[in-house]
């Protein structure tokens, strides 16, 4: 009986192709929009999350903030010193690594080629904390770090630009006013979501940068890698307390430095994504509601048009619930069709636009199953009222209907 009902419904839908298509258009557009948005959104989120984790695990970044001077003028606060790095290393429990970064920009020259890039003075821990790997060559030696030798590690972009296919190892490049020996090249991380080249920089020992390139001993940033995520909050508190003490900030005054937790940033992104998903869900619900009303409308028209047919069926001995099922199945099949077409359309749209937007195409089976079931549910809810109207008709009146 149910198989007959389904066949009957399909042939009834097929009898009026154009109208059936227009009926489901609302559902098609609604489901299509949701599928493409969620697929694109999912791709973007996974990319951003990857990037944040690629910054390093449990990474804390300490930066000088701003001071409120006289008359409310904000000036940037005192930079850190290497002693601050040492103090953190010695006094704070639960940290895996701490590393200073002093940076400047310089033009690197090799032969006839030159390339302007940023130069960061740091130590080997930077590689661990930011998860950089050495593709060729070696890290800084203890001696090079201690006396500030003129050696450097190149980001892959810099190596490419200066050396092309030549071997950069042991080559001497000019870096601003100094000559510097290349001891290694880092593995490429590629472009970030926002189109930034992550491989465009040069590393030198921090002392080299201080003495030979900057003429001061300022540290612009301190990277700290906490031992485990659980203790990261305690670590943050301890660091804040230590820095307030070292920078003589009185109780009640605000910090003149910033401590950012990348795990926190990742969580923020995730919760933002959550909000976005809820928002998309709401749009989906509204568009499916509109689509459902479209189906109800056409089903009501269909029931009225087929009053005589309903009368014949009831007179011949169809039960009310059999007639109800017939129209309900028709509405469900219609909206499932709409859902399937919408899913196909949405995936197609996402597959085409994802490369254009430079984000990965992430296939999300969950949302497809949900969209499919939801469109079926819309069919049931909005098909029920017209179907019930058909089922409750009086056969005599229905047969007489003109």
């Amino acid at each position, binding site marked *: 009986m149910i198989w007959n009902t389904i066949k009957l419904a399909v042939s009834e839908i097929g*009898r009026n192709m154009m109208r059936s298509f227009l009926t489901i258009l609302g559902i098609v557009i609604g489901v299509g929009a949701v599928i493409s948005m969620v697929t694109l959104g999912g791709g973007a989120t996974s990319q951003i999350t990857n990037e944040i984790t690629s910054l390093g695990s449990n990474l804390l970044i300490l930066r000088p903030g701003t001071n409120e001077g006289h008359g409310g003028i904000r000036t940037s606060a005192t930079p850190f010193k290497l002693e601050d790095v040492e103090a953190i290393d010695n006094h704070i429990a639960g940290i895996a690594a701490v590393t200073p970064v002093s940076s400047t920009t310089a033009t690197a020259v090799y032969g006839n080629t030159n390339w302007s890039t940023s130069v960061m003075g740091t130590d080997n821990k930077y590689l661990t904390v930011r998860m950089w790997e050495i593709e060729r060559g070696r890290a800084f030696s203890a001696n090079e770090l201690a006396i500030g030798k003129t050696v450097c590690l190149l980001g892959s972009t810099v190596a490419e630009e200066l050396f092309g296919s030549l071997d950069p190892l042991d080559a001497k490049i000019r870096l601003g006013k100094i000559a510097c020996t290349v001891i290694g090249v880092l593995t490429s991380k590629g472009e970030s979501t926002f189109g930034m080249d992550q491989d465009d920089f040069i590393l030198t020992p921090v002392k080299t940068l201080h003495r030979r390139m900057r003429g001061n001993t300022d540290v612009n940033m301190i990277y700290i890698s906490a031992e485990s995520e659980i203790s990261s909050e305690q670590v943050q508190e301890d660091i804040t307390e230590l820095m307030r003490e070292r920078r003589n900030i009185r109780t009640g005054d605000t910090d003149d430095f910033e401590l950012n937790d990348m795990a926190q940033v990742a969580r923020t992104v995730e919760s933002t994504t959550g909000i976005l998903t809820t928002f998309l869900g709401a749009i989906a619900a509204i568009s499916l509601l509109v689509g459902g009303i479209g189906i109800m409308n056409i089903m009501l028209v269909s029931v009225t048009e087929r009053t*005589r047919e309903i*009368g014949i069926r*009831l*007179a011949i*001995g*169809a039960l009310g619930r059999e007639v109800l099922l017939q129209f309900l199945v028709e509405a469900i099949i219609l909206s499932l069709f709409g859902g399937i077409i919408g899913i196909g359309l949405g995936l197609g749209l996402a597959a085409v636009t994802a490369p254009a937007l430079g984000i990965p195409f992430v296939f999300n089976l969950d949302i497809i199953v949900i969209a499919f079931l939801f469109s079926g549910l819309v069919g049931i809810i909005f098909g029920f009222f017209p179907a019930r109207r058909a089922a409750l008709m009086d*056969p*005599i009146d229905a*047969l007489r209907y003109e």
Partner: protein
Amino acid sequence: MDTSILPRSGNDKDKRAEKTGLPLVDFSKVSKVYGVGRAQVIAMDEVDLAINEGEFVAIMGPSGSGKSTCLNLIGCLDTPSSGSYRFKGVAVGGLSRNQRALLRRHYLGFIFQGYNLLKRTTAIENVEMPLVYRGYKKSVRQKMSLTALKEVGLEGREHHTPAQLSGGEQQRVAIARAIATNPSLLLADEPTGNLDSKKGSEIMDLLTKLNQDRGITIIMVTHERAMAEYADRTVHFLDGRISNIQNNRVIHQ
């Protein structure tokens, strides 16, 4: 739903074998009142009528005299306002909507006024429809439908839609649909109403054959005396009452 309240129709070739001695249709003081107060219409007024199995009965009368009302009551499409109607001894007034539907499904065949075939649906699909509700398999349904269409002389027209058939042919499809289930009782409301007298008498010959060969009880409403004469008896209605019952066989003999 429960059909055990009724004797099973089965698939017996000869309906007369089921004879219980009771009349098939038994009206006792049946009234049908439409509307209330001033708008009240008494469509049937305390009608007593008994029709036995195997009979061919014609119902005649002026417009508005209650013929269709009577046929709807016999067909269990409606229930009496008062009085009692027994079909095969079962009081129809006490049956639920679903029970009446099942009674129609298993015992009755309808030839509606103005054919009432499904549009854009082939002849064979139209004939199959009541068989679907009876729960026959597709292959069985097709065999039964083809037999019924053959019986009404529509071989080769199985896959035509009503729009592609003449009025007489459409009426034959409607008859095939009504008899495909092998009903105990066939109800026809003006089966020749839209046909010329030649086509009309062809239809009447067909009904007579069904009545005589298969023993199907037939109750038919008609306006034409010539058509009524094919029946065993003619019941005349006037203002919701039976004015006269005429035995055609006696006259002819």
